């Protein structure tokens, strides 16, 4: 396994596009060290900031205080990247495959524009995870993002396909203008979820105040949700039997758009009955 250890936190954000296991799989140490990174507006080399050790292969590990290191794992297509600690903004942006595990927290815009692969955040995530790249209408187009802590605002904004699951609390306006896909909030959901959503599903496990443009359809047990929740439990997220077996109120919206989306809210009273 190839390991990159950050020597000291950079004074301004360090942009590291290309530090992915698939890209570095066949590189020698000197080749890795000579790769370009941007320290603010200054061109620099990986070797200026990271100590490189270990053998190249399908696994890459990045260590250190990486909160000011941006774009870690961005665009990766295969392999496994482990970030030992917190990571900065745009972590896993545009991922197409492989698995990226952040053992700490991630900054804003993690997983924006993802098309495949799996991003696992063991801590909390910032705003705009799984959203759209700037200037684009559609957000994440595939893959999975799992956050074991909390997540900020606008989770899955413009989401087109894929699954975002957050074990903790999700901030405001989750699923803003989402086009399809699924967001599961296991620990609470902030204000105005699904604003402007066209299609897709937002799942909440506790009461939510919805926009008046959502209408209650019925309360039932969505068969697909059992598959999703069992999948999440198998991956280590805290899903309870009550949530898997429970009934959910189905709210259709957003009425300002197609009203083809849904917000499913666990009906705790029925679940306990």
């Amino acid at each position, binding site marked *: 396994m190839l390991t990159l250890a950050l020597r000291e936190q950079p004074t301004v954000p360090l942009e590291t596009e290309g530090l992915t296991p698939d890209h570095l799989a066949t590189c020698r140490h000197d080749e890795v060290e000579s790769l370009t990174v941007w320290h603010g507006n200054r061109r620099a080399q990986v070797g200026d900031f990271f100590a490189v050790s270990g053998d190249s292969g399908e696994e890459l590990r990045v260590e250190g205080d990486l909160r000011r290191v941006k774009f870690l794992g961005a665009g990766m297509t295969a392999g496994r990247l482990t970030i030992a600690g917190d990571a900065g903004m745009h972590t896993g942006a545009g991922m197409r495959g492989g698995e990226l595990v952040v053992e700490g927290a991630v900054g804003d815009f993690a997983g924006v524009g993802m098309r495949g692969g799996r991003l696992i955040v063991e801590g909390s995530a910032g705003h705009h995870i799984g959203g759209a790249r700037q200037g684009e209408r559609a957000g994440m187009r595939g893959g999975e993002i799992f956050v074991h802590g909390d997540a900020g605002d606008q989770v899955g904004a413009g989401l087109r396909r894929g699954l975002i699951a957050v074990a903790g609390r999700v901030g405001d306006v989750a699923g803003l203008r989402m086009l399809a896909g699924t967001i599961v909030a296991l620990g609470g959901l902030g204000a105005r979820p699904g604003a402007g959503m066209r299609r897709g599903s937002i799942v909440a496990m506790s009461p939510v105040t919805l926009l008046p443009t959502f209408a209650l359809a019925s309360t039932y047990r969505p068969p697909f949700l059992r598959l999703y929740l*069992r999948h999440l439990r198998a991956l280590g997220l805290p899903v309870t039997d009550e949530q898997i077996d429970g009934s959910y109120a189905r709210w259709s919206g957003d009425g300002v758009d197609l009203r083809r989306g849904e917000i499913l809210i666990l009906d705790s009273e029925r679940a306990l009955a």
Partner: protein
Amino acid sequence: MRLADAEVVDTFAEAFPMWGARIVITAESAGWAGEAARSVTGFATSVIGCKCEAGVERVLDPAETPDGRPGVSVLLFAPDRDGLAKRLVERVGQSVLTCPTTACFSGLEGEETVDVGGQLRYFGDGYQASKVLDGRRYWRVPVMEGEFLVQERFAVAEGVAGGNIIMLGRDSASALRAAEAAAAAMRTVREVILPFPGGIARSGSKVGSRYSGLMASTNDVLCPTLRAQVANSAVPPDVGSVFEIVIDGLTLEAVTEAMARGLHAAARSGASQVTAGNYGGNLGPHHIALKDLVPGPGED
């Protein structure tokens, strides 16, 4: 050769390739999963008249099913891939989609797939929605009860059809007792089904007929009532009744194992003779010789 009280004829079953799929049906209760399974496997005894052959493979524990509910595994076979796809759409559409609380999944994995849920989704009349999880697409079809969930593509595989054993007995009761024991033993094998009622056919057939246009007709050489009329009757003087068990399976090994277990059970349960049906070796590539099964399942 003899096995227990039965004579085992030195012949072989002639099996041939047939495309198969495994359907996993789940429901809120084992009862409703069973209802759907019975319906989807109904009228599917023989491709001669039903276009497909189907049966219940086994009951599934909730821990074995994709959604964690009680389930039933069904195998369905048809002569070709396209025909199998049509039968799947027809039967899942008419018998599973309609059945309370059910969901339906592919029970096989593989590159070769056919579109099932992708066809049934149109029942949703535009209100259907899809979900993709772990690389598999599922369709959510709104129905009056709530929602029907069906996997879009079902994996299909080339299986083996036409495995069989034929049990001859002194009278109808003893022959049927032997056949029942054989069917029960065969059902313990996974990846096989016995498509006839209760697993047993009383009307084995031969290819063709004296009537034009009829693909199959009664197997006269094994009809005890015709022993005095048919020149080449294969019914011994002390035999009054004959039953056949047909086995379809996903693999030749499973079909062979089922035949072996059935042969031994029949021989120990009143059959006076056990034989097998074939077409002179001209139809199918798989010849399962009964003599190879006599040492017993799993024995050399």
